[in-house]
C-alpha cells in the first residue's frame, strides 16, 4: 500500500468502506447522476422494498435521452406536450420519483437542462477525486476532470440509491500515452478514434484507462471530455485524466463546486491526485500525435476506423476468419464496397451533438467550417443539438446559431437526440449520417441507419460538400 500508486488506485483507496478477503471492496459513491431511461425500475425496486434514497444530496437527476429536441415551451411559456406516449410516461415517472424520494432535479424546461454528461461538469457536480456513477456507459466522460466515473446498470442504480455504495473489484490499469501536437484540423475526437482503432473495441475490457503525455496535458477540458467519454468504446469502463490547473480553472465558480476555504482545501487534495513515479500499469499503449489524421469510421464497431484519406478496407485481406466475416457483414450493412475512397462516400444526414461532441468548443469548431458556406443540396437533414441549455445560450451569444441556421442547419433544444434513436431524431433505413456521436453500431441511429463517426469539424465539412471530406482541404 505504501509503494508508488496510480491515480486510479489513489481514488480507489480513498473510497473503500469495507474490504472482503477476496479483494472485493464496498466502494463509496460520491456523486450519482440519474436520467429517465435507466432509473424507473430502480425507484420501483426501492418502493417495493420500502427503502429510501440514502443520500439525495449526492444525487442529481436530469432528463435527456427521450426528450424531443424541438421547442419545449410555447410563446406564452406553456409547456408543450411530448407526443410519444411512452416517452411522456418515462419523463412523468422520473418527475414523480424525484418528488417522492426528494432527489434534486433539473427539469426539461430549465435552462440548465442538458445531456447528463454535459450537465455534471458544467454545474461543478463532477469533481476531481470523486467517484461518480450514472446508469449510462458514457459516464466515463467525467474522468476528464479526474473523477473515477463509470456507467452502471439499473440494479446498480438501485443499489447506489439505497446504499450510496457499490461492490467492486479493482480494475487493471491501461496507460494510453500520447506525445506531441495534433496537426491542423485534427481534434480530440480524431485522437480517441485512433486510440480505439489501435486497442480495439474490447481492448480495454477489465481496465481503467489513464490518459497521459503532453498531448493530453495541452488539451482543453472539453477535448478531454470527448476523449474520456469514448473510453467505453474501447471496452474500458472508466478513463482518467490527472487533474491540473486547467481542471481547477474550469471548475472554479461553477454552481455546485466548492467555495472559499473549502475550495482551497479541495484544490490542495486534488493536486495530490497524480500517478506516482514508478507506479506500474498492467498495459501501456503509445501513440504519436503527429501521426493522427482526421478519422472516420467505415463499419459498425467504433474500432472500424480509418483516416479520411484512406479507403474502405478489403475484408478478404483480413487473415482471421471471424474478423473477416465481421468486416463483410459490416460493409454489407454500411452499403460500402472494399477499396472505395472514404472521401467518395456521400451522406444524407449530419448530426452535430451528443455527450461526446456538443460543448461550446465543438460548436465553435463546426461553425468555423460552416461560416459563409451552405449545406449541400444532397443533405436531407443537418442537426446541431447543443449539449445543454447553457451551451445553447453561450453559442447564441456568440452568434453561432445564426451561422448554422444561415447555412441550412436546424438549431435544436438540448438532449441526446440522434445519437441513439430514442426520441424523434432518427436516421431512416439505409440512409447515411456523418455523426459526432460515439457509436456506429448497426441500428444505433435508427433501424438500418448507417453511421460514420467523425469530429465536429469533419461533420461540418461533410455537411457543406455532401460527402465525407477531409476538413483540412476546406479550411486553411
Amino acid at each position: 500500500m505504501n509503494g508508488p500508486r496510480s491515480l486510479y488506485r489513489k481514488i480507489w483507496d480513498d473510497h473503500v468502506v469495507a474490504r472482503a478477503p477476496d479483494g472485493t471492496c464496498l466502494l463509496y459513491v460520491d456523486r450519482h447522476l440519474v436520467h429517465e431511461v435507466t432509473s424507473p425500475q430502480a425507484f420501483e425496486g426501492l418502493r417495493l422494498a420500502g427503502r429510501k434514497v440514502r443520500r439525495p444530496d449526492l444525487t442529481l437527476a436530469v432528463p435527456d435521452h427521450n426528450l424531443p429536441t424541438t421547442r419545449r415551451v410555447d410563446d406564452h411559456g406553456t409547456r408543450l406536450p411530448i407526443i410519444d406516449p411512452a416517452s411522456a410516461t418515462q419523463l412523468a415517472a422520473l418527475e414523480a420519483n424525484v418528488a417522492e424520494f426528494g432527489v434534486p432535479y433539473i427539469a426539461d424546461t430549465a435552462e440548465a437542462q442538458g445531456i447528463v454528461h454535459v450537465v455534471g461538469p458544467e454545474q461543478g457536480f463532477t469533481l476531481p477525486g470523486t467517484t461518480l456513477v450514472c446508469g449510462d456507459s458514457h459516464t466515463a466522460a467525467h474522468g476528464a476532470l479526474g473523477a473515477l466515473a463509470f456507467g452502471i446498470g439499473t440494479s446498480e442504480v438501485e443499489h447506489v440509491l439505497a446504499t450510496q455504495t457499490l461492490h467492486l473489484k479493482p480494475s487493471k490499469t491501461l496507460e494510453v500515452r500520447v506525445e506531441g501536437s495534433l496537426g491542423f484540423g485534427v481534434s480530440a475526437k480524431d485522437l480517441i478514434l485512433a486510440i480505439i482503432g489501435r486497442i480495439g473495441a474490447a481492448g480495454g475490457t477489465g481496465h481503467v484507462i489513464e490518459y497521459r503525455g503532453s498531448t493530453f496535458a495541452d488539451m482543453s477540458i472539453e477535448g478531454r471530455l470527448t476523449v474520456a467519454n469514448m473510453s467505453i468504446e474501447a471496452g474500458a469502463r472508466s478513463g482518467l485524466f490527472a487533474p491540473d490547473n486547467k481542471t481547477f480553472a474550469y471548475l472554479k465558480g461553477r454552481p455546485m463546486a466548492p467555495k472559499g476555504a473549502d475550495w482551497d482545501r479541495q484544490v490542495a487534495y486534488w493536486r495530490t491526485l497524480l500517478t506516482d513515479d514508478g507506479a506500474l500499469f498492467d498495459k501501456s499503449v503509445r501513440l504519436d500525435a503527429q501521426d493522427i489524421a482526421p478519422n472516420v469510421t467505415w463499419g459498425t464497431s467504433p474500432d472500424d476506423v480509418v483516416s479520411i484519406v484512406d479507403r474502405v478496407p478489403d475484408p478478404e485481406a483480413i487473415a482471421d476468419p471471424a474478423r473477416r466475416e465481421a468486416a463483410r457483414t459490416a460493409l454489407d450493412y454500411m452499403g460500402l464496397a472494399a477499396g472505395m475512397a472514404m472521401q467518395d462516400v456521400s451522406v444524407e444526414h449530419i448530426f452535430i451533438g451528443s455527450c461526446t461532441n456538443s460543448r461550446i468548443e465543438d460548436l465553435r469548431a463546426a461553425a468555423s467550417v460552416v461560416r459563409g458556406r451552405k449545406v449541400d443540396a444532397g443533405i436531407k437533414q443537418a442537426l446541431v443539438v447543443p449539449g445543454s441549455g447553457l451551451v445553447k445560450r453561450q453559442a447564441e451569444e456568440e452568434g453561432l446559431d445564426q451561422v448554422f441556421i444561415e447555412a441550412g442547419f436546424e438549431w435544436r433544444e438540448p438532449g441526446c437526440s440522434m445519437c441513439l434513436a430514442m426520441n424523434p431524431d432518427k436516421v431512416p433505413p439505409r440512409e447515411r449520417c456523418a455523426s459526432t456521436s460515439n457509436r456506429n453500431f448497426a441500428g444505433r441511429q435508427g433501424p438500418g441507419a448507417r453511421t460514420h463517426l467523425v469530429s465536429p469539424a469533419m461533420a461540418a465539412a461533410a455537411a457543406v460538400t455532401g460527402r465525407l471530406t477531409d476538413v483540412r482541404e476546406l479550411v486553411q
Partner: protein
Amino acid sequence: MIPVRQVEGRAFPLGRKNVDTDMIIAAEHLKTVSRHGLGRFAFQALRADPGNVFDDPAYAGAPILIAGDNFGCGSSREHAVWALADMGIKAVIAPGFSDIFSSNAFKNGLVTVVLGQAEVDRLLAWAAKHEIRIDLEIMTVLCHGEAFAFDLDPFRRECLMEGRDEIALTLLHVDAIEAYERRIGV
C-alpha cells in the same frame, strides 16, 4: 432472486462477436418503466433475417446462448439482460463479456460463462445436435461427453447459487458506511 445452481438445455449458436446491447434490445424499447415483457423485442434486427437462430424451431425455448467475444458491449442498458431473461435465456457462454453487461447479468441471476474461443467454437458446432449443461457447483460446462472448466468470482458464484439480495447484504454494512461518511465529512 431465484437461486441458480445449473442451467441445462439447448443453446442458440449465435457465434457472432461484438454483440452490442443495442443489438440485443434497440433503444426504441427502452421507454418502459417495467423489467418485464422485453423478450419479444430481443435481437429484433437479427430476427428480420429468415435464417436466424432465434426463430429456428430446433432451438425453441433454449436457455443458453453461445456468442463471440465482447458480448454485451456498448450501452449500459440493463434492458438487454431483462430482454434475454424474458426470452428464457438463463446463461450466456462467450470468450469475453463487457464489464457492465456481466455485472448487470449477475444482478439478475443470468449466468455469464467465459470459455476460450476454441472451446466456444466446439460448443457452437455441437449445439445443433446436443444439449449443454452448465454446473455452477463444479464450474464446468458439459456437452457431448466433454467437460470445459470455467472460472467464476467466488462472491458472485455464492450470490447466484444462494439467490442473495445484494442490497440487503450491503445494508449489513450500514455502520461502516456511516463511519466512512463521518470520517470524510459528507
